[in-house]
């Protein structure tokens, strides 16, 4: 039967990734190489593409019933940034390092993350931004922001020191977007996005703005919430968490709880313990608090797309800008670089 179908739509090929443990499924390979070796950052890049059901069980990335449910497609090992781990560190490449403070939004520092994503929506570069919001118990929740008005949800900005399922929300976002998606995350999430983009065109073409956050470490929700409650933090009154000058500060409506971050070492996730990237070197723009005055965000503009957004913000007068001092980052960059020692060779 002759058909008028374009050749190739009925037959196509997919590269099969290398499998170190030949007679095991790809999930078992991922587990053996990344999860069981404590390299896993919980970025959930694997879960974002896994059609079977990779998820988090008791703070560990896992796949219940993988024996029967893993389809052995290899998508997880193709995208996991730590399957073949190439630790990154330093300041990374950048066009400019500046300090910024949004005039329109309130955030953790200068709300430049929010400003970058909302301005990108206004410019038409993206039609949605993925934000990590939180519930009243400070557990993270993902939000697809499409209109600046949605930022009226005051819990969208601000830092949550617990992991957020940013990447599992990304697949849905890229499938629905018309113009493009903007995303914000810790350096491990940024590396995950880059892997997704390297492997699959849909992410390459549709993720148009990747904002990284400076990051020393993040925490599992159960661990940090138990710890904070122990320290007398009342979640119903908690309005802000911050790490500044080596101290963890939980600000409540009527009081403040402060303690040395070092004390949190006992609950430091193993994936963060082997993470050397402080500034999210692979992002389009990285934002953090060190390097600029209080109330400002430090912004490392790395790629042209982010530069365009910054220029748009300047042109519209949406933010105040100032100088950033990169030398203030040296200590934390060095601190994270030292974690290289924790990475065990195969």
């Amino acid at each position, binding site marked *: *039967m*002759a*058909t*008028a*179908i374009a050749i*190739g*739509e*009925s*037959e*196509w*090929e*997919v*590269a*099969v990734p290398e499998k170190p443990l030949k007679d095991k499924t790809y999930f078992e390979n991922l587990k053996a190489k990344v999860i069981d070796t404590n390299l896993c950052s919980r970025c959930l890049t694997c879960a974002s*593409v896994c*059609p*079977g059901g990779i998820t988090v069980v008791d703070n560990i990335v896992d796949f219940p019933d993988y024996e029967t449910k893993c*389809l052995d*497609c*290899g*998508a997880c090992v*193709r995208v996991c940034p730590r399957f073949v781990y190439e630790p990154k560190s330093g300041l990374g490449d950048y066009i400019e390092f500046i300090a910024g403070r949004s005039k329109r939004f309130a955030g953790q520092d200068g709300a430049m993350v929010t400003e970058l994503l909302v301005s990108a929506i206004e410019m038409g570069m993206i039609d949605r931004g993925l934000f990590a919001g939180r519930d009243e118990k400070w557990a993270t929740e993902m939000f697809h922001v499409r209109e600046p008005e949605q930022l009226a949800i005051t819990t969208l900005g601000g830092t949550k020191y617990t992991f957020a399922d940013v990447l599992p929300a990304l697949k849905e976002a890229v*499938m629905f977007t018309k113009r493009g998606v903007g995303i914000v995350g810790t350096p491990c999430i940024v590396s995950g996005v880059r892997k997704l983009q390297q492997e*699959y*065109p*849909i992410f390459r073409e549709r993720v148009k703005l990747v904002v990284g956050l400076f990051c020393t470490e993040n925490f599992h929700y159960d661990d940090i919430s138990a710890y904070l409650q122990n320290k007398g933090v009342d979640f119903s009154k908690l309005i802000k968490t911050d790490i500044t000058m080596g101290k963890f500060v939980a600000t409540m409506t009527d009081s403040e709880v402060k303690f040395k971050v070092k004390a949190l070492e006992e609950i430091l996730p193993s994936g963060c313990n082997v993470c050397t990237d402080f500034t999210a070197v692979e992002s389009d723009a990285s934002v953090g608090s060190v390097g600029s005055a209080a109330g400002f965000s430090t912004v490392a503009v790395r790629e042209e797309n982010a530069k365009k957004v910054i220029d748009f913000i300047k042109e519209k007068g949406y933010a105040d800008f100032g100088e950033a001092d990169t030398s203030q980052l040296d200590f934390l960059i060095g601190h994270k670089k030292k974690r290289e020692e924790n990475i065990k060779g195969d």
Partner: protein
Amino acid sequence: MKSMKKVVGPEYNLSEKIKTNVYAVGVAMQESVYPHTMTVFYPRERKKMPDNYRGFILFDPDKCISCFNCSFVCPANAIRMKEAPNKRYYPTVDYGRCIFCHFCIDSCSGGALKATKIHDVAYKDMDEMFTPTEEMIELPEIIREDKKYVEYEIEEDDLHLKRTKGEDYLFVEVPPPIQIPMVSQCIDRANCIGCRVCEEMCESGAISSSVENGMLRMKIDTDKCTGCGLCVKECSMQILMLKKLERK
């Protein structure tokens, strides 16, 4: 001002008066012996409905391709698609909403929806009017007491009832729609993750895969593909699409 017309009664002469009176008595006598009532004695007799009558809707899951056309077209939003145990989506009809336009039947690409002449289904409450897929496959239970069916006939400018012994057939046999054959095609191969969910879903064995030289080769056999769309729905990356199969 409009002019008014005066209504004048007919003027009969004596012979005409006698004639009309005799005729009237005649009709009265005839009607008392053989009445021409216009009443249909439902349920002992039923009116024979025309073949394009729009009544209760029947459904044949084997013909449904889960295209959602019916639910999209329904102007009363009476059709909801529900996932069946076999993962396919099938229509359900809420007769509390249905306006019996039968647009759904007209739009059904698989010819899975069928019209019947059944108009007499009773429900105890609104909830019961929601008809799940399972209850659309068989005719609803109707107790038939009809021994005759009735048709209207026009005879010499007069309307008559024609009664025929026997039961009216409540199904409507319509020729199946002309179907445009559709087959599943991969429209974005570079985003295939090679999960083979499509292969697993296909009940017709149309999708196969093999590994050669470190490459996974996916293949859709367009001769075997029935265009059911299951793989399209389940594809992990949403890169499959039903396309028209045009013979050259």
